[in-house]
């Protein structure tokens, strides 16, 4: 039987206190170390975010800014993040459409929202282009609790892109130059012929003029001699005046017409190349198309006629005119090539390229139709891929339609529908928004867009 129970219990209790104290000490140390680790992990992540070259903005579900990284603060032109925190994202995001897409769908934003071209507005009101990606921030239960926006500053890239577009335009001007030289050559030649004829005619008229001068002088001195009258009569006869008075005005008229043709070609070329105009300007689409038809005449005239049906009341639209000219050029040249493929080798057979413009609600519609052999079914969904080409190696870079797509869809928020069949040829239907996007009109546009696509069940939407 154990007698010293209380003593043993006491001793045990003392030991327990000791052990517990030790445990508390250990726990406290552990806690301290964990806190240190947490702090340095936090600093580590913060330094990564700080050193990021991209703009990082975290939004609350209702769209206000919860946090921003330093890069975003400085690129947007602010001094301190506090100036942005709590603000609605539209203060800096200049992208109505992207904004809608982002926030109306926050909850069912399944995958990330990837690399959309958008722009931000800096504190000074300056706007700069970014590639915007977003993903939903979810809590442990999977409920969306915010949005992480990552934006890549693409100002540099935009400048390069602009230069590339310009370079591509210069390249096509280069390619057009030979055709243009030919186009100019014909009128220049008959201007030359006519001028030479006028030179000769003048030589023939010279004696008539000389004799007339003499006659005038002798008449003034009071004596008119038969001799001087004979002189004129002979000169008139040799010069064949009736012939000259019929032909000279004709030659002059033809010369002026030639000069007009040359100058219209030069004017079209000048307008087509739009040197120096970088931003969006107000432009008349009909005349852009007209110019393009003129400069590209040599590319299509042997295989096709161009028929235009322009809506007379088209409003001017704000656009990158030079880029759209490039679009029309690419479509016309493509149409000509498609026709060339089927008329090749058949004498005197040509096709038709029909270009029409019209207004449909909020949209300006441009259709370019050819009577070529159509686009084979199996490549229809590839035609807008960069570098995709059906032309023999060395003849096409494959950038033509990719560029069309980029300019219409990305740069102008337009759409392209392609309808094609072997017996009907191919129609490219471009739609450009008449008004730059306004918040209210957005939904309307989406709606007409939907009607439009259902109306073209068989068409490919791009």
């Amino acid at each position, binding site marked *: 039987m*154990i007698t010293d129970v209380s003593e043993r219990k006491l001793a045990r209790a003392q030991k327990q206190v000791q052990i517990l104290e030790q*445990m508390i000490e250990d726990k406290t140390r552990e806690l301290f170390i964990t806190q240190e680790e947490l702090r340095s992990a936090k600093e580590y992540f913060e330094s990564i975010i700080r050193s990021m070259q991209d703009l990082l903005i975290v939004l609350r579900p209702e769209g206000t800014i919860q946090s921003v990284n330093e890069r975003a603060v400085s690129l947007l032109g602010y001094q301190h993040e506090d100036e942005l925190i709590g603000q609605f994202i539209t203060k800096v995001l200049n992208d109505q459409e992207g904004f809608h897409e982002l926030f109306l769908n926050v909850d069912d934003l399944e995958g990330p929202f990837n690399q959309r071209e958008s722009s931000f507005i800096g504190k000074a009101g300056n706007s700069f282009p970014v590639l915007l990606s977003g993903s939903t921030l979810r809590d442990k239960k999977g409920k969306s609790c915010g949005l992480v926006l990552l934006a890549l500053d693409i100002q540099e890239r935009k400048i390069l892109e602009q230069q590339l577009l310009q370079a591509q335009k210069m390249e096509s001007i280069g390619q057009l130059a030979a055709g243009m030289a030919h186009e100019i050559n014909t009128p220049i030649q008959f201007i030359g012929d006519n001028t030479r004829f006028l030179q000769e005619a003048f030589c023939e008229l010279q004696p008539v003029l000389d004799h007339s001068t003499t006659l005038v002088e002798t008449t003034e001195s009071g004596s008119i001699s038969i001799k001087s009258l004979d002189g004129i009569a002979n000169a008139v006869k040799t010069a064949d005046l009736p012939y000259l008075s019929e032909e000279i005005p004709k030659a002059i008229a033809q010369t002026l017409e030639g000069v007009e043709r040359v100058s219209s070609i030069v004017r079209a070329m000048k307008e087509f190349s739009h040197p120096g105009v970088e931003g969006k300007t107000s432009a008349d689409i009909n005349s852009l198309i007209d110019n393009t038809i003129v400069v590209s005449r040599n590319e299509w005239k042997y295989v096709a006629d161009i028929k235009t049906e322009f809506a007379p009341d088209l409003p001017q639209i704000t656009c990158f005119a030079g880029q759209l000219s490039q679009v029309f050029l690419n479509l016309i040249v493509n149409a000509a090539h498609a026709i060339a493929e089927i008329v090749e080798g058949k004498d005197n057979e040509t096709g038709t390229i029909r270009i029409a413009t019209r207004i449909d609600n909020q949209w300006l519609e441009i259709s370019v139709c050819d009577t070529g052999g159509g686009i084979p079914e199996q490549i229809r969904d590839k035609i807008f891929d960069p570098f995709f080409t059906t032309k023999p190696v060395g003849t096409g870079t494959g950038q033509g339609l990719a560029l069309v797509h980029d300019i219409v869809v990305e740069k102008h928020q337009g759409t392209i529908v392609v309808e094609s069949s072997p017996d009907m040829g191919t129609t490219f239907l471009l739609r450009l928004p008449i008004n730059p996007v306004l918040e209210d009109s957005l939904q309307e546009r989406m709606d007409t867009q939907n009607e439009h696509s259902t109306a073209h069940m068989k068409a490919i939407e791009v």
Partner: protein
Amino acid sequence: MKGVVFNLFEQFISENWSEEIYEQILEECSLETAEPFVGPGTYPDADFLALVVKATETVGVELPVAIRAFGKFCFPKLAEVFPHFVQTHQHPKDFLKTIDSVIHVEVRKLFKDAETPEFRYEDPGPQQLVLIYKSPRKLYEFAEGLLEGVGEYFQSPIQYTRTVRVENEQEVAIFELTFSEAAVCVS
């Protein structure tokens, strides 16, 4: 096994028999652990078993009976230490349903290295509950004792049957519980 359980066992023996008997059991056991048990500590299961076996020998009770009694003894003590787990419920059924998803989760947060069993539930009727218990320790009687303790605590006796089956090469015990009609289940 956590020190709390060892300490509860000391209380169990001391209160039902005597402090002397506990000292005797402790003295006669050869344990892996030399120092006294403290609540947050973790000790070998074998030490716990050795203590329980020695206790049954010393007081002359069968092992299953002893463990069940210990379980029944433990519940009100645990409820005393963690009143908020229990007080929020009117009916033992509601309470029992929270063991796996709330109580033992909190226990594991609080006690490092705690190894609590796994419970799954089936709900065949208002006055019934099936508890499927899975633990390598197979402390079926302990669980039964706790259930009895729960019934007593809520003043609504719980009847149970136990069947054992093998699931994925591991033994599980299925406790089919029936609650007394008197208690009104809110869930």
